[in-house]
């Protein structure tokens, strides 16, 4: 990486995230001064540490499901046995993305009940598209000559996938994971509407109670989390 080591934004963003997650209550006087009309200028129903942990947990589990399902679908769609299913898989997944997550939550909540589970399902479905799309794109971009050589030299289909296709497609596949996780960090905030505790809780409560300070506190942390994770992914991207 170029530039001075102090110019690297990741440690600063991380510092801000950790500092605000634990230190938000100490900013109460600041919010009181900024929003003098509010009785309660600081969200105190839950600690921000607990909200952050719940939010990260929700994103981690739903993204893990998206990624594993998405990788499996992407690999299947690019094997000779699965080629015929590729348009179908892409259509189904694209539909999953077209339906707004709020609608998935609205349908899921009465069926499954309130809480974490409908949120997890909605997020996992919603995060699937970029993973599938980029896995298929990455695997399809491996040059035909390379595939022919791999097979012609005597690799089994699995060896070819693991040693040649996957590593060559990895930058594109990883970009799909990155997009999916970042989307899920934002979307997870909406999950608070069905009762899951996330960083979206202060935002939702703030919006319904006209408490701009709550909205701000939640939004800043969600935003910072997204920035930190995105910078982290950038660090993982292979440099060419």
């Amino acid at each position, binding site marked *: 990486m170029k530039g001075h080591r102090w110019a690297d934004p990741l440690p600063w963003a991380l510092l801000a995230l950790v500092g605000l997650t634990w230190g938000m209550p100490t900013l109460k006087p600041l919010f009181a001064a900024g929003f003098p009309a509010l009785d309660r200028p600081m969200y105190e129903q839950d600690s921000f540490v607990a909200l952050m942990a719940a939010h990260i947990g929700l994103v981690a589990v739903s993204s893990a499901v998206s990624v594993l399902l998405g990788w499996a679908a992407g690999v299947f769609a690019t094997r000779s046995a699965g080629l015929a299913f590729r348009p179908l898989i892409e259509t189904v997944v694209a539909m999953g993305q077209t339906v707004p997550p709020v609608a998935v939550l609205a349908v899921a909540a009465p069926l499954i009940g309130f809480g974490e589970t409908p949120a997890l399902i909605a997020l996992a479905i919603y995060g699937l598209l970029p993973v599938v799309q980029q896995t298929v794109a990455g695997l399809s971009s491996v040059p*035909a000559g390379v595939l022919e050589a791999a097979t012609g030299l005597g*690799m089994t289909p699995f060896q070819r996938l693991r040693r040649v296709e996957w590593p060559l497609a990895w930058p594109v596949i990883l970009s799909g994971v990155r997009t999916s996780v970042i989307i899920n960090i934002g979307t997870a905030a909406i999950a608070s509407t069905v009762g899951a505790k996330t960083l979206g809780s202060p935002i939702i409560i703030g919006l319904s109670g006209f408490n701009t300070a709550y909205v701000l506190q939640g939004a800043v942390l969600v935003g910072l989390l997204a920035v930190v994770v995105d910078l982290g992914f950038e660090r993982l991207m292979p440099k060419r």
Partner: protein
Amino acid sequence: MTATRAMDAMIEFQQVGKSFNGQAVVEDFSLAIAPGEFTVLIGRSGSGKSTTLKMINRLVEHDRGKILFAGQEIRSFKPEDLRRRMGYAIQSTGLFPHWTVERNIACVPELLKWPAARIRDRVTELLDLLQLPPDTYRGRYPHQLSGGQQQRVGVARALAADPDVLLMDEPFGALDPITREALQLEMSRIHRLSGKTIVLVTHDIDEALRLGSRVVLLDHGRIVQAGTPRQLLAEPANDLVRDFIGRADIGLRLLALDTVASRMRAEPVESSTAPPLRDTDTLREALSALIALGATRLPVVDAAGTPRGQLHLADLVQTAA
């Protein structure tokens, strides 16, 4: 099928046929390739030459007939095992871009689980053979190599596990003429040194005549003529063969098959200022030099520069022995 007969050929096609979507691409193809033979399959695009090559290592499965490898039906092998016993080289795009030269070459030995030290020695040996200094090239990536160097690595990778057979699908097609010729010389040398059975596909008649101990001309999936380069040039089976080898150039191509040493007179050389010919030059090159210099004879030297005799223009016209 008796064992002795089967052992005669390294690869044997028996009335092999292949169709794609009901369209026959290869039909009634029979050919026995002896161990150590350098067979060149040549033909226009769509003649079935590439398909024929790929049926040998089962990248394409044949529909009709039988293909034997070392006397055994190729379907009796697991495809991967069969392929690991046959080197495979294609145009330079086939190198693995994320692996170094060393790992690319080590590919098949790794699949065969050779010990690391043996693999390393083998890579060194092959880089030397292909005239790529090991210390310089071992750690490079394909994109850091020229087209000719990539192709050398491709050949080294195909040779890595010391396969019985080397299959090459238009390996020099993407190279410039100078690099291509250098690599053709290299392949001749490797063939002489290793005695490997080589099957090469090309559409370049000069490449075929230069490299092949046998040239098989295909058209519409059938063999039009199979023979030594000299047979094809001297006794073309039909007009198609004549067209393919270039009617106007047949004489010159025949000359290209022989070296100066074969027609030279071992006589004392009159003092001459003309640049000498090498005894290993082809007669075609010699004729070109004679014409360019306006000479009727030129002195001949060997690799050490020692005078060997003279080549007379008139001796080039004598019919091939």
